[in-house]
């Protein structure tokens, strides 16, 4: 026995939520305002109507869900010069309820991973507030592409971590509903029916590398030449980090003028050449190989050591969005498969 919901019933709920002033977020085709012919990817975004949502379970939005909890630009507080005094104004805490519909499980799975970071030595008010205000309905992936590798990092297309509700498509019109949290149950209360229909488990992408092999390499391969050879083509942009559901580096900037301004938290990315530039002029990571090594180490060694969780859900966004097809998967595949006898080689 399982719970099911029809597509119509779901969309009807969405319309009610939108009508009620809630922010509904989901994968949608970003249409350019003109018809210049430019192909525009599917992205997660706030929808104005239920019809915009793409709920087939086949979409792989180019962005991740993190920006709805940890936006790319977030005002921390404002300041005004008043004579010789500086007056600070607090930022209003978020208060709009958000409902994410049609998220990918791998995107949702990143959120509990990020919870560690935002609640470690300092409890981040706005992040946690947004987490509380948000309910997440994910749809199990019905398909995968060559960049998907959730199974390699211990996840799967039906991974319910981070989701409040996980839907599995039964057919084009119906979903099997798996409630993960009470919050999720409350959200769809009354919209589901009990039926004796279970969705077939979707096919999972093949395992691309062995985590154990990777960890072994990371433990002893800091100076391995593969770091350089596999990352030569990296251009040093932030496309991987900014579309990654788990990357969370940020920069604190002041923006203002003679009257006042604001202090903000902006996304930052470890592949930028100036990311680690010190005020002295020294830059400890002075080439892309070192920056890529840092990225992989952070995801698979440093973060797990600190928080017990891998900082990667295998969504494949990094590789998919990389201008030169370089991402966690391509680097890790290469190094995990590197011959072992070279382990000690400098």
């Amino acid at each position, binding site marked *: 026995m399982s719970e099911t919901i029809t597509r119509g019933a779901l969309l009807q709920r969405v319309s009610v939520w939108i009508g009620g002033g809630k922010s509904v977020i989901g994968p949608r085709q970003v249409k350019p305002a003109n018809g210049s012919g430019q192909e525009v990817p599917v992205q997660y975004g706030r929808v104005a109507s239920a019809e915009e949502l793409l709920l087939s379970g086949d979409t792989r939005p180019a962005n991740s869900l993190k920006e709805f909890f940890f936006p790319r630009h977030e005002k921390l507080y404002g300041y005004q010069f008043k004579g010789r005094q500086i007056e600070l104004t607090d930022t209003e805490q978020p208060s709009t309820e958000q409902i994410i519909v049609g998220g990918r499980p791998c995107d949702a799975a990143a959120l509990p991973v990020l919870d560690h970071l935002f609640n470690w030595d300092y409890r981040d008010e706005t992040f946690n507030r947004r987490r509380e205000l948000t309910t997440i309905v994910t749809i199990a992936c019905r398909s995968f592409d060559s960049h998907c590798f959730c199974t390699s990092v211990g996840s799967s297309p039906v991974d319910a971590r981070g989701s409040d509700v996980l839907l599995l498509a039964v057919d084009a019109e119906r979903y099997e509903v798996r409630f993960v949290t009470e919050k999720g149950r409350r959200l769809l209360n009354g919209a589901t029916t009990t039926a004796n229909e279970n969705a077939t488990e979707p096919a999972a992408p093949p395992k691309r590398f062995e985590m154990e092999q990777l960890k072994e390499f990371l433990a002893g391969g800091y100076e391995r030449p593969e770091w350089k050879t596999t990352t030569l083509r990296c251009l040093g942009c932030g496309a991987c980090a900014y579309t990654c559901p788990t990357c969370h580096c940020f920069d604190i900037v002041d923006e203002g003028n003679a009257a006042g301004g604001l202090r903000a938290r902006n996304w930052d990315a470890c592949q*930028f050449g100036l990311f680690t530039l010190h005020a002295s002029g020294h830059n400890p990571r002075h080439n892309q190989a070192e920056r890529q090594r840092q990225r992989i180490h952070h995801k698979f060694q440093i973060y797990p050591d600190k928080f017990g969780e891998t900082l990667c859900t295998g969504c494949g966004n990094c590789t998919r969005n990389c201008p030169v097809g370089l991402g966690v998967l391509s680097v890790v595949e290469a190094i995990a498969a590197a011959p072992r006898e070279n382990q000690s080689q400098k």
Partner: protein
Amino acid sequence: MQNELRQTCRRLLEEGTVQVVIGYGDGTDGQTFPTFVTRRDDVERLVWNERCYTNLATYLTRPEILALGKAAICVKACDERALVVLEKESQIDRSQLVVIGLACSTDGVKQPKCEACENRTPRWANVTIGDAAGETAKTTADRYAALQAFMQKTPDERMAYWKTELARCVKCYACRQVCPLCYCRQCIADKNRPVVISTSATLKGSFAWQITRAFHLGGRCIGCDECTRVCPAGIDLRLLNLSLARAAEENFNFRAGVDVEAEPIVGAYSERDREEFIR
């Protein structure tokens, strides 16, 4: 062609003419990625097919690649224009570079820019592989058709369009990093004393950034459209580039990278430049 390419590269590496070949390698799903071949036996990794999009010229100014030694680079006719500009701007020394020209067949690389392709065979390569035997005369109108269509909108509509589009910009700077002509050691966007361009990915910061990026390519952009291709937010940056390219062609009869003799229009002037807009 692919075999010929591999043979050529093997020879260049064997003879020690170059230490590295910058070319295309196979990726998953038939995609191709930039690859750097330093050993002759690795030339088998090189491919040439209709998905060789990247303009590899962007690697010619990167310290990681320069460190590999004297290079041979694979270019398509469209990419090759970047070399002309880079040479004019003292970024490359053609005598220290072997250029392998790859001719695109008619059903070759398919990108929006291919619509306005005028020349499928590189013109200044040291070695040219394949013969596309094709120059398709294009008019100015063909070149700027996309822009022309866009400019039919009213200024307010154009502004509204860019507000929608740039709202998606996350400032990942893929447009900058992929650009063969954005080789500054420190971009003005990263300058903080003073902050000329707000670093935030807000509309304000994104407008300032995209205006600056486009303008700094004014009279320099060769139209490889890599910025547009790689934008994860799907912003049609090409329109901005085209507008400056058209301005350069209409006002100064200049197209970046098509004439090895022509001097850059940036840093130059003519006493006869138009000025009807100046009061």
